[in-house]
């Protein structure tokens, strides 16, 4: 794949005696190589300075008590501290919950809508455009609007719920779990250990779903378009229809797309920051303090650069391990054509 077909360009158009090129040719070849490097240089230098170098610097910072510079080398102390820090475990749990709910919800909805859109729908382009709209909108702006949609007092969501006879909720400012909230509506007391995610976190998940489903739909549609039509026709001749077609043709042949989206969405949920910061700042309390919010706060509010660099590495390794597990578990079942 790399360097396909043009590796021999120079020699192919060169003299019939390739072993001893004339000085003029050699000069031209040197000029070409110099030009090649010159064209590559800006991109490569920028990547070295802003990607590779920070990787090393970040690791160095994580081994320091960092105050404008490495005030004291502390070795693995920041990492050890992280493992003993209950707030960090809490943040990781919040992140994991956020991810575990929003990934299947997002992908399930996206697959449903993409599959429906694929049924020769009139106005398919218009639907796709509308679904994709939240993704291209500035996150801060849409998160600010959603903060008002969720508002307990003046928000339209509560107004709507009340108009159909359901109780209004405190949404983004509700720290109670959704399971006791749900059952308390029917007057049932749930045991205190049975909480479920807080409604505040669920509200963020609703927002995330709203933003990213359109993106996932576009990718699923591309995957659906790659499935050969003849397969469906052949199966229909054999009398298959509806669900049978979906389970025996669409689902297996879409597995590469689904797997790709799964990887990207899990990573995306672990990185989520902007909308959480805008809508809740990680609160109320620490109900929505995900790992990325926690790392940010450690750096900005407490000036703990070393600690927050160490936390970044820990989260990175968790994502890495998750990716490897996904590759092992799901990757094997993927069918590539």
């Amino acid at each position, binding site marked *: 794949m*790399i*360097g396909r077909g*043009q590796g021999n*360009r120079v020699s192919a*158009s060169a003299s019939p005696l390739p072993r001893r090129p004339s000085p003029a040719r050699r000069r031209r070849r040197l000029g*070409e190589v110099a*030009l090649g*490097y010159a*064209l*590559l240089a*800006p*991109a490569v230098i*920028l*990547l070295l300075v*802003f*990607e*590779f170098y*920070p*990787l090393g*610097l*970040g690791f160095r*910072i994580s081994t320091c008590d960092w105050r404008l510079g490495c005030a004291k080398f502390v070795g693995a102390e920041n990492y050890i501290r992280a493992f003993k820090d209950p707030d960090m475990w809490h943040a990781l749990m919040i992140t994991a919950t956020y991810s575990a709910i929003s990934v299947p919800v997002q992908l399930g909805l996206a697959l449903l*809508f993409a599959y*429906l859109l694929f049924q020769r*729908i009139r106005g398919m382009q218009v*639907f796709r*455009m*509308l*679904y*994709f*709209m*939240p993704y*291209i*909108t*500035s*996150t801060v*702006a*849409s998160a*600010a*609007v959603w903060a*008002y949609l969720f508002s307990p007092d*003046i*928000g339209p969501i509560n107004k709507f719920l009340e108009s159909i006879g359901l109780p209004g909720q405190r949404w983004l400012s509700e720290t109670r779990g959704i399971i006791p909230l749900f059952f308390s509506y029917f007057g049932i007391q749930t045991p205190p250990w049975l909480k479920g995610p807080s409604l505040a976190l669920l509200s963020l998940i609703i927002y995330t779903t709203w933003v990213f489903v*359109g993106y996932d739909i*576009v*990718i699923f549609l*591309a995957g659906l378009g790659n499935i050969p039509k003849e397969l469906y026709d052949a199966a229909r001749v054999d009398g298959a229809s509806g669900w049978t077609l979906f389970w025996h043709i669409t689902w297996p042949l879409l597995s590469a797309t689904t797997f790709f989206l799964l990887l*990207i969405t899990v*990573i995306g949920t672990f*990185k989520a*920051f902007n909308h959480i*910061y805008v809508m809740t700042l990680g609160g109320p309390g620490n109900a929505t303090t995900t790992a*990325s919010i926690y*790392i940010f706060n450690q*750096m*900005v509010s407490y000036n703990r650069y070393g600690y927050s*660099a160490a936390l*970044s*590495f820990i989260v*990175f390794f968790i994502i890495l391990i998750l990716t490897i597990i996904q590759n092992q578990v799901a990757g094997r079942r993927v069918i590539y054509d």
Partner: protein
Amino acid sequence: MIRRVIRRRRVSFNRVLIYAVLILGAIVSAAPFVYMILGSLKSYGSVITNKFWPWWPFGDEPVQWQNYPEAIETIGTDVQWGIPLFYRYLFNSVLVAGVTVAGTLATSIMAAYTLAFIDVPGKNILFIGILATLMIPADLTLVPKVVMMFRFKWYNTYLALTVPFLVSVFGIFLLRQFFMQIPKDLYDAAQIDGAGHLLYLSQVVVPISRPAVITVALLNFIWSWDSFRWPLLVTRDSGMRVLAVGLQQFLAGEGGTKTHLLMAFATMVVLPVLVFYFFTQKHFTEGISRTGIKG
């Protein structure tokens, strides 16, 4: 005969159900935008009491166009330049997005050209090295990059907002893939006509690759317009903020209670991009489905 009629009716019922679900999805996608735009034209009282349409013919409220100038006034004044802060935010956002898009295009096109057409020693290793940076998540390098900005004395300057984003691996990769589909004969023909690499690049390769170039430009523009955490971290003065940061600060401050003004501010941030999107949406969706890169 009867069976056929029943079957057709069932099929059309399915059709109706499909359309109902799709339309419901479209309503949910669009509703927050509708709420935002309508809210920006209502009085504060109408927003907080959730009057959907307080204007003629269902109500007697005039359309509150003055929310927009009022929002701009409430956001404050930029002491440095003596202009309303909103215009400074807008200037900063446009400047950062413009420089980022132009710079990214330049570095990506140049690098992609070498990777696709010029046979330099160590090319494959360089290409793998470039792709490897995709594995480095931005979160991992956030702390050291902030430290670097202080060391370079770039903190609170436009350099910090633009220079780290003048390169895009996604752009390099997408353009290289596109360049490699250009037939080799074209280059030979250009060489016979006496055109060197640079002339070939600017006169043939870039014009042919317009769709890919536009996709890279659009996506980088959206990402730049959307960036929030980085500008929040590396700027201090209100005059250095971009729109996204300004909007968040407004929400956390005065806009938190003046809902109608916040909606006006949010509309001014979102609407230009939305209008832009309506005219170019094919490039967005095609670019994304071709590469599957997430911002």
